């Protein structure tokens, strides 16, 4: 059994359970806050993108293009190092704030594309059907467009959330402690990369598994509604 301990010394991994747990909770927390932020930004950007006003339209399109064409790591650096240079806050952003804002802005661009596609997927005909029975704009949105858009959009939104969770590992670059950071701690203290990063991988896989379960569940539930 020695070769197992050689490859992966679980006794060491067990020693670091508190670190891994703290890291896991931090990852979940960071992802959750960034998710809420990105959904808010994404919804606003999607509505702006569909507006008839060319200024709003262009701002939203430019934002999405800029995010999609540059790496998240650079976005994190720019926001964490450069935003404090602007006399906005009067103080430095701390690492956590900078990281979450960057993650939220990044995911928000992808979310906005998903949300827009969802709303546009509702056929013109159904909207006219709703108009023809006299439903107001808000009633059409509330009873016809949004329920269906939500069903169409939930699976890709969950997929993007899984990406967001993985991407949150990059905030360790600016010194935020989370699941990957826990791995870095083990590496630097014990010089045991397998015990560090295989354990971290299992942690991410556990979160991913839960996401996958919800995604399948949602697909089955919502798929059923549309027959």
């Amino acid at each position, binding site marked *: 059994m020695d070769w197992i301990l050689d490859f992966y010394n679980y006794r060491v991994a067990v020693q670091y359970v508190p670190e891994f747990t703290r890291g896991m909770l931090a990852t979940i927390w960071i992802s959750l806050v960034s998710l809420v932020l990105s959904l808010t930004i994404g919804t606003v950007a999607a509505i702006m993108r569909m507006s008839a006003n060319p200024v709003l339209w262009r701002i939203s399109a430019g934002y999405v293009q800029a995010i999609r064409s540059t790496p998240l790591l650079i976005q994190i650096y720019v926001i964490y190092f450069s935003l404090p240079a602007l006399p906005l806050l009067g103080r430095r952003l701390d690492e956590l704030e900078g990281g979450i804002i960057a993650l939220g802005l990044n995911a928000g661009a992808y979310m906005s594309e998903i949300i827009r596609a969802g709303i546009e997927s509702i*056929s013109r*005909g*159904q909207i*006219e*059907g*709703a*108009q*023809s*029975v*006299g*439903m*107001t704009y808000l*009633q059409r949105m509330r*009873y*016809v467009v949004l*329920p*269906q858009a939500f*069903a169409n959009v939930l699976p890709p939104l969950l997929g993007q959330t899984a990406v967001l969770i993985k991407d949150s590992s990059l905030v360790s670059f600016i010194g935020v402690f989370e699941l990957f950071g826990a791995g870095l701690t083990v590496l630097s203290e014990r010089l045991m990369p397998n015990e560090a990063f295989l354990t971290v991988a299992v942690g991410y896989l556990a979160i991913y598994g839960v996401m996958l379960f919800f995604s399948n569940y949602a697909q089955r539930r919502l798929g059923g*509604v*549309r*027959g």
Partner: protein
Amino acid sequence: MPSETPIVVVNDICKTFRIRGRPPVQALRHVTNHVDKGEVLVVIGPSGSGKSTFLRALNGLEPIDSGSIVIDGVDLTDPKTDLNRLRRGVGMVFQHFNLFEHKTALENITMPQTVVLKRKGSEAYEIGHRLLDRVGIGDKADNYPSELSGGQQQRVAIARSLAMTPKVMLFDEVTSALDPETVGGVLELMKELATEGTTMVVVTHEMGFAREAADRVTFMDDGAIIEEGTPEAVFDNPQHERTKLFLSQII
């Protein structure tokens, strides 16, 4: 049978579609018409002649450039008119049904009643079931649109409109997207509605239906009304060359 009270009065309406990079299309050129209470007006004409645009204008789905449309005394072109309120009184059945895909057949009929007319759920439910029986698919109440044939979906769409107790019903080529074997049943249903005294404007290519059910036939071409009269007059003794040509091609 038609009385002399007009429900719909259309006076000199024009509509031009302008799309950037394409020549403008004059879809309606000075169209004047009217529909009396209980009357069945059938609109025929070649494809692209403006029939759908005319019908959609009556429901306020297509804003017009000039002229006026008055429905049961309410001017549709008046900016102060609440279009949503007016549309409750104008039922519309589409070529492609336009059912709400996330609702069952029954819910398609009950939802607008509760949302728009604020009817009680139980009342809407009762009306929904009665109308589904009426259009001949009482057994499909709990099926989603994707589980119904085209003909069945179109019956649901008709029932959805009827549930709003409209003053006038508009039908835009409602059998064009149906399988041949289901066309007859839907036309039969429309004939029944006609004999029951429903005020109807019907755009169709089904000349047999037009002959039997219409009180008056209007022939449109290139955005204008070319000829109109009783079915006998238009079909058996057309006055205009374009009408003759169209009828010779279609029959």
